């Protein structure tokens, strides 16, 4: 009974989303701008919830509560600061400026906006390429999440590959059909659904265990250190690094950044901005506190399994647990569908059009964008079934990877003296630095390999043998996970800042650069 009901709830939910997509399809124009940005027409509720649902992936339901369970509820603070405040401020500082520029110059992507200002096709391509490098594995992670969740929920009746494939096929269908408008409408449904289900879940569990006082007392008896602010895990440096890096990373994630262009009016941006912190805390409290309380409630969490489903299974009926899992699916899909669309727009607009076919018509671009979605989604699914460790590592680090773009972009938006060479160098240097810290093990292995090959040669052998340890020591000292407790992501951001400013100061702008377009004429009326 339960299995049928669970699958029924999820399928029912998917069909509802598809129906919304079809309604949106009836309203679309056949242009790329409409497909990507719903012709820049979003109202407050839709923009607010589409950004909200896009931003909060399955992480809020699975990994987040797991962290709260194992390490304590301080995670609420980190997420509150990063999403509720830092991102909100960037919403104004980066988002509003991008919106004004988008209104005026009809930009659709970040790369397009930068490429136009710096008169550089190459810069445009670099921004798109870097974004796709981090986006692709992140989409894979979402597919893996969906596949795993479906498999766990149905106790293996729906195997992992089938679950991931089903969700992907479904997403392709409604992204290709409905575009941004359909995605935003389903996001609005999904965001509201997430909020309601997590609150009902928390109230339900608390009602069973005797209120928050009893739940917290049980947690205190089990792990009192979780209630005191801070721990070996939650150090000051770690909390700040994580909040800052992810907060900035979010603003550069293509699917979030692109929403800055899509608001219908200034009023919409203002209202969404003011409501943002409350909306975030409303979701984080129930979701992460459930994870934290579970620690004291004797909930059996399987090794490597997720806490939230286990709590729900212990305290609520099966149909409700399925409903919340559907909510998690909603969260995961509402992020992935937007990523597919944005990934496709970065590819068609910033790579295909400038480098392959410059004379692409609007109508053709619209078609190509839809084909792009299919290719992007299918490739990510294929890759995720092969479970390549390197790509998963990239996906896990995606927020930090995107964060490396934020400061060079911010400087370009606000400092007239930024040069093409400066921003390009800043982006490349911080990306290279961060990628090297991520894969420092492989770099060391490569040095050892080269060393052993060259060591065979009689002439250079001794020299290489002497040089190798020094080189390895140098690499492992310079590229680390953390610097006095501050994460590599944050250090990389600092490097990007210094390089962008430094190189801009010592280079002169190219003659074709349009140095004033980010500044002049951006007035209120």
């Amino acid at each position, binding site marked *: 009974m339960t299995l049928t009901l669970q699958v029924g709830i999820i399928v029912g939910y998917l069909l509802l989303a598809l129906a919304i997509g079809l309604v949106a399809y009836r309203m679309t124009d056949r242009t790329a701008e409409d497909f990507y940005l719903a012709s820049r027409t979003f109202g407050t509720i839709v923009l607010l919830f589409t950004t909200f649902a896009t931003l909060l992936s399955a992480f809020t339901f699975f990994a987040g509560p797991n962290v709260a369970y194992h390490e304590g*509820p301080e995670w*609420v*603070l980190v997420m*509150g*600061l990063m999403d*509720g*405040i*830092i991102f*909100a*401020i960037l919403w*104004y*500082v980066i988002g509003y*400026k991008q*919106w*004004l520029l988008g*209104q*005026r*110059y*009809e930009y659709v992507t970040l790369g397009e906006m930068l490429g136009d200002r710096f008169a550089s096709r190459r810069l445009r391509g670099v921004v798109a390429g870097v974004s796709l490098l981090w986006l692709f594995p992140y989409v894979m992670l979402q597919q893996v999440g969906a596949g795993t969740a479906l498999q766990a929920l149905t106790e293996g009746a729906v195997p992992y590959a089938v679950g991931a494939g089903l969700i992907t096929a479904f997403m392709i269908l409604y992204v290709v059909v409905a575009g941004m408008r359909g995605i935003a409408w389903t996001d609005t449904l999904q965001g509201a659904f997430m909020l309601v289900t997590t609150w009902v879940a928390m109230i339900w569990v608390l009602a069973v265990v005797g*209120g*928050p*006082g*009893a*739940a*917290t007392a049980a947690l*205190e008896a089990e792990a*009192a*250190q979780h*209630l*005191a*602010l*801070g721990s070996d895990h939650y150090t*000051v440096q770690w*909390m700040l690094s994580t909040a800052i890096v992810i907060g900035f990373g979010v603003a550069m994630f293509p699917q979030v950044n692109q929403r800055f262009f899509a608001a219908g*009016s*200034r*009023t919409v941006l*203002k*209202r969404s*901005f*003011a*409501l*943002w*912190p*409350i909306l*975030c*805390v409303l979701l984080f*409290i129930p979701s992460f*506190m459930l994870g934290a309380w579970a620690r004291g409630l004797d909930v059996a969490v399987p090794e490597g399994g997720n806490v939230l489903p286990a709590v729900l299974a212990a305290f609520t009926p099966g149909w409700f647990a399925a409903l919340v899992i559907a909510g998690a699916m909603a969260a995961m899909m509402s992020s992935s569908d937007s990523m597919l669309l944005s990934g496709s727009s970065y590819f068609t607009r910033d790579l295909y059009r400038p480098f392959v076919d410059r004379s692409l018509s609007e109508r053709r671009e619209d078609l190509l964008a839809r084909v792009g979605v299919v290719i992007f989604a299918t490739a990510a699914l294929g890759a995720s079934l092969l479970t390549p460790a390197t790509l998963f590592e990239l996906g896990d680090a995606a927020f930090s990877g995107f964060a490396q773009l934020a400061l060079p972009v911010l400087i370009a938006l*606000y400092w007239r003296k930024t040069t093409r060479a400066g921003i390009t160098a800043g982006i490349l240097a911080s990306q290279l630095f961060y990628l090297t810290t991520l894969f420092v093990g492989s770099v060391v292995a490569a040095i050892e390999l080269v060393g052993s090959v060259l060591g065979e040669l009689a002439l250079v052998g001794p020299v290489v043998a002497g040089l190798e340890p020094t080189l390895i020591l140098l690499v492992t000292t310079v590229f680390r996970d953390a610097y006095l407790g501050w994460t590599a992501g944050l250090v990389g951001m600092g490097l990007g800042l210094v390089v962008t400013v430094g190189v801009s100061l010592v280079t002169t702008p190219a003659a074709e650069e*349009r140095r*004033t*377009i980010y*500044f*002049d*004429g*951006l*007035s*209120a*009326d």
Partner: protein
Amino acid sequence: MGLKTEILQLWASNSKSYTRPVPTTGMRSRRLVWIAVGIVLCGLAIPWFLWGDGTVVAGLPLWLWWHVGWMVLASAVFWLFATRAWGIGIETDSTSAPTGGETDRRSVRSGGDQP
């Protein structure tokens, strides 16, 4: 050059704030105040002064109550910013029309709602 001059004049006549000087000291100090407000909002979202404290109030740790209150405060401050100071640091209201080869190659749209 004739066309360009015409465009510049059209631009200027369309800009209500044509005669307003940029940026005044008042604007600059307002901008600094808002930057300071932003930094304080970020700085105290996590109550560092309660570090190591495990006091429980009404079923939740005190530091969590602080955070919830702070987020509500942040929303209120953002609302205030949106109604009073929106555009600060971004909208130029400048007298300088686009210069030297900066005439737009794309159409200029209206900037959204009327304030």
